[in-house]
């Protein structure tokens, strides 16, 4: 019913191409997040699905129907905007019922559907209020309510949580997720916050400079990033990168440090490679290599250490409580089975 298929879609503004042909298939009921740095084209893509931007070339279909030339209202979608875009001169009730009013749905039916959505979102006490009298979280719920009331095939979210404070964001994150589990409506959600993406999505589409870098489940992206961009974009604190080359089963960093990985690089033997190590994959080891400590940041559950290691500045996150002071040295090694290797020139992951 609500499957969305995006097929080789391009977008030009004048002579400038901002989307270079992207393809994604989103299954009915799936929660897909488009994530990437600002300017990567994720919002443009979402707005093309909504019908707010023209599709330069390619095809978008919703529920098996090509929607390229359909007006937004005929696409069976609803959208939640970053600023919520609540109509300031209408009450919560009128805001939520506006689309039904335009469709000439009867008053009783509208009231019923608004009450139903308000019930789901806990908005019953606020129906008669105006948006300016609501808190940020409540406004966010009204924006979702306005979408739910329409019972569309697809929900579109454009950075809906970025105007909320940190605590509320975490709470709304789980509310949106719970609503999705209950309504099972296909959802396309845009954010620049990779934590949001990781915690909410069934699948994540990582975009960068108008192309799709990788599509996969959150853990696939974390465990097997397809390239250097995804590797550094997903995960916080982000992955450490060491430049060097492979000699047999050893990685030789540019400063000459030799790290044994217990695996080869296949065809990339001798070529420049980049080794990626997530902070939590460094371990203290008396047989490891010296790391000169720059700062130590205990967070309680773990200790984050910034150190100079193999000619680069790296961050390690250790379960142990480290008492060493800046300037002192500790010996650490990367968990060899969990390091990632990338071709430095192309940025592509080197398969084992």
């Amino acid at each position, binding site marked *: 019913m609500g499957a969305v298929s995006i097929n080789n879609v391009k977008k030009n503004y004048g002579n400038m191409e901002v989307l270079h042909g992207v393809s994604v298939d989103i299954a009915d009921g799936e929660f897909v997040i488009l994530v990437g740095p600002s300017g990567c084209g994720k919002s443009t893509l979402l707005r093309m699905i*909504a*019908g*707010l931007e023209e599709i330069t070339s390619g095809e978008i279909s919703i529920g098996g129907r090509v929607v390229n030339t359909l*007006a*937004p*209202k005929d696409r069976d*979608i*609803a*959208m939640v*905007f*970053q*600023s919520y*875009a609540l*109509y*300031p*001169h209408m009450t919560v009730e009128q805001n939520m019922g*506006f*689309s039904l009013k*335009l*469709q000439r749905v009867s008053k009783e039916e509208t009231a019923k559907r608004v009450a139903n959505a308000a019930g789901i979102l806990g908005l019953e006490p606020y129906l008669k209020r105006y948006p300016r009298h609501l808190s940020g979280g409540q406004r966010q719920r009204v924006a979702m309510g*306005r979408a739910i009331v*329409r019972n569309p095939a697809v929900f579109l979210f454009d950075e809906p949580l970025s105007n909320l404070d940190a605590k509320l964001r975490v709470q709304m994150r789980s509310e949106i997720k719970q609503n999705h589990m209950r309504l099972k409506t296909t959802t396309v959600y845009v954010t620049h916050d990779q934590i949001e993406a990781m915690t909410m999505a069934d699948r994540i589409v990582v975009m960068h400079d108008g192309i799709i870098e990788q599509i996969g489940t959150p853990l696939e992206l974390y465990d097997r990033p397809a390239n250097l961009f995804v590797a550094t974009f997903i995960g916080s604190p982000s992955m450490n990168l060491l430049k060097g080359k492979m000699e047999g089963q050893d990685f030789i960093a540019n400063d000459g440090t030799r790290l044994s990985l217990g695996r080869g690089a296949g065809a990339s033997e001798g070529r420049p490679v980049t080794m990626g190590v997530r902070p939590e994959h460094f371990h203290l080891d008396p047989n490891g290599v010296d790391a000169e400590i720059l700062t130590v940041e205990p967070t309680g559950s773990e200790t984050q250490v910034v150190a100079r290691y193999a000619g680069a500045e790296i961050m390690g996150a250790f379960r142990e409580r480290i008492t060493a002071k800046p300037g002192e040295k500790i010996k650490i090694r990367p968990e060899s089975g969990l390091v990632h290797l990338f071709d430095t020139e192309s940025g592509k992951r080197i398969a084992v």
Partner: protein
Amino acid sequence: MSHSLVRTGLPRPLILIGVVIVLLVCLFPFAWMALSSIKVLGELYTIPPHWWPDAPTWSNYAKVLFESNIPRYFWNSVVISVGSTGLALVLAIFASYGFARFNFRGKPFWQAFVLIGQLLPTAAIIVPLFITLRVLGLVNTYWGLILVYMIVTLPLSVWMLTSYFKAIPVELEEAAIIDGSSRLGVLFRITLPLSLPGLIAVLVYSFVTTWNEFIFALCFATDSSVKTLPIGLSEFSTEFNTDWGGVMAASMVMTIPIALLFLVFQRLFVGGLTAGATKG
């Protein structure tokens, strides 16, 4: 709400003196107009002049209201001001919406064109306008002045409304489009209700400007069936061999509606007028 402990600024007495002077300068002529309008002829022409009328009289007003053409001109002014204000508003709403929300070829040129309308020396186009109106048979008609007043009201109306429309978040309109609104539906259900202060500011501005306009009226309305109040007032002096009591009474009749309109809406009006100035 930040009030610093040390109050800098002008000393209190200086502020007081300054404000009193400014108010005197601005308001004294009105006071004198009002006082003169209720004096009898003999009292107007005494040396030295009397400050307060010894025998206040409504006779000047009676003369203006019952023995002159002023009531007729008042009605003409109302028709022409309401007509041109309404027409300008309708045209400006659509034009401003087009400028604020769409990109089209030549938009900067057309916006500059509208702006130049505001800067045009009126004296330079009176002659051809007169000839054009004469050809169209619009000299000495309501429609002639209503149309010509578009020159005065339309450019600023378009400018003010464009900045009001631009200030309304685009997302609101996009939300309405997704909710199923048509373009015109968006304009009438979302944009206009949210621009109400701007609309009022534009209305008041247009009305005041057309109500006060003198030169076009002088050239294009020479028949007493369409003459407006300003023309009536300028004639009044000769008509009664400069009966200053009558002139002042007529001035009051002309000023009071406009002053009331302004004072009622002044907050919106000043806000609308200055919005563009402070944003730039």
